[in-house]
């Protein structure tokens, strides 16, 4: 005997504990199995691109802090990179090293947060979340010591960084580098071999290599599906060609692989940080530019490997002191494009962790 069942539409969000912000998924479910899903976004739209058209290139930098608020340093780097490419602004070597250190610390912080959220989405009682947040706090302390704030850093400037590192920064960084591997081991103890986590995440939210490429996914989403593509290696910017590091890739493209790629990326970030700590030279940190400088008319696309994927700033200038048009290629936004394909056919519980593994930040999705 088969019972007739009716599909039920569930409004997942916008104020749901595990949608990672004000994000809505309209789920049509047959029992527990999702038959359709429609992402609804835009609740956090602040018109960043429009605002930037009325601000100078320096004033755009604080706007980028508010995009992906879990990794503001990376946003700053991408923004100033586009401006530097457009205006051929040289960057002193020490500033490049500082940028690499900050961007990699930011990647650590972001992946810490994401790993914690993953287990929260799975339903642990915030335990790993607090451990990861503890390490994230230590990294934010380093940021605060350098540039005065923890999250809205605005540290990068076209032509370098705002100001030099304080004296006590490098010793503190050393202490963090010594401690962090053990903390990552702790995270792995709670996740990597936990049978329940494995049962929940393996084979869930599977994305094929072909879909990942055609949909323009980037970052751990792309690498989790087995594509070896990392902007740091494949489109080297800053001084990343000086560092030895590997690109971890997954095999199956499921939630577990994406998590695993992130954990491995944390270890690789530590490797980069060790080398940067070893090699950082003395010297100037900022090319002198006037307060309101002009860039030649033209277009430039600066992209970096942000923690969430390829973060690009497309700048069009008409020769004025403000960008004529600035477009943000937000990795979270484009990665969300495949959410429907990753969740249809799985259960409601799987949709939550799949969304978590996409690692979105609504500040960046809605911009």
């Amino acid at each position, binding site marked *: 005997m088969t019972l007739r069942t009716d599909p039920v539409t569930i409004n997942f969000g916008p104020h749901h504990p595990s949608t990672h912000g004000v994000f809505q998924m309209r789920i049509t479910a047959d029992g527990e199995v999702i038959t359709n899903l429609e992402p609804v*976004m*835009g609740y956090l*739209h602040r*018109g960043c*691109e*429009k605002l930037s058209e009325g601000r100078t290139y320096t004033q755009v930098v604080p706007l980028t802090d508010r995009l992906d608020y879990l990794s503001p340093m990376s946003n700053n780097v991408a923004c100033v990179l586009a401006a530097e490419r457009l205006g051929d602004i040289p960057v002193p070597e020490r500033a490049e090293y500082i940028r690499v250190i900050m961007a990699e610390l930011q990647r650590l912080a972001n992946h810490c947060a994401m790993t914690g959220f993953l287990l929260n989405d799975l339903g642990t009682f915030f335990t790993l979340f607090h451990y990861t947040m503890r390490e994230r706090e230590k990294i934010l302390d380093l940021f605060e010591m350098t540039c005065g704030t923890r999250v809205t850093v605005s540290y990068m400037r076209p032509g370098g960084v705002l100001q030099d590192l304080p004296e006590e920064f490098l010793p503190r960084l050393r202490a963090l580098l010594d401690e962090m591997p053990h903390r990552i081991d702790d995270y792995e103890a709670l996740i990597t071999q936990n049978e329940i986590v494995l049962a929940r995440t393996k084979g869930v939210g599977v994305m094929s290599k072909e*879909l990942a*490429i*055609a*949909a*323009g*996914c980037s970052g751990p989403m792309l690498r989790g599906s087995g*594509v070896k*593509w990392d902007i740091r290696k*494949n*489109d*080297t910017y800053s001084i990343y060609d000086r560092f030895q590091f590997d690109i971890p890739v997954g095999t199956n493209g499921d939630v577990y692989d994406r998590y695993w790629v992130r954990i491995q990326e944390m270890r690789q970030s530590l490797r980069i940080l060790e080398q940067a700590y070893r090699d950082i030279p003395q010297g100037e940190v900022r090319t002198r530019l006037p307060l309101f400088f002009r860039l030649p008319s033209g*277009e430039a*696309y600066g*992209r970096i490997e942000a923690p969430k994927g*390829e973060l*690009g700033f*497309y700048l*069009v200038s008409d020769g004025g002191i403000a960008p*004529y*048009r600035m*477009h943000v*290629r937000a990795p979270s*936004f*484009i990665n*969300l*494009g*495949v959410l429907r394909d990753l969740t249809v056919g799985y259960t409601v519980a799987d949709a939550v962790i799949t969304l978590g593994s996409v690692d979105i930040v609504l500040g960046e999705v*809605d*911009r």
Partner: protein
Amino acid sequence: MTLLLNADEVAPRLRDRYPDAVLEAKGSSLLVRRERLLEVARFLRDTEGLDFDYPCMVTAVDWWDYFDVVYYLNSLTRNHSLYLKTRAYGRELPAVPSLVEVWRGCDFQEREVYDLMGIRFEGHPNLKRILLWEGFEGHPLRKDFIG
């Protein structure tokens, strides 16, 4: 380092196939005729040696007289990139063909351009506002929009 292809190298190959497609090849940006955009995109994706399989970014720029629709394309196999541009004329909902069937990744980004810039993508299966709400008047990223 991703090689930014020179449009002059790509344009002749394209002209062989579609003589009227290329309007301008300047620097690394290839400006193509709006009507031929879909064919050009397929050509760029499927031709051996070009292999643009990765749609990196879709956006549009308002130049008052026309809109530039910009596709920043990448090839993960060959590790090169190209700006593909087309122009949409008119202020009353100008239109360009949608590239969703060529690259899946254009789906959300074209919706975003439609939403904020007011360019209709013909053939898009689900073209509706994505960031702003249905019923919002105007398209905020246009230069004549006063918010």
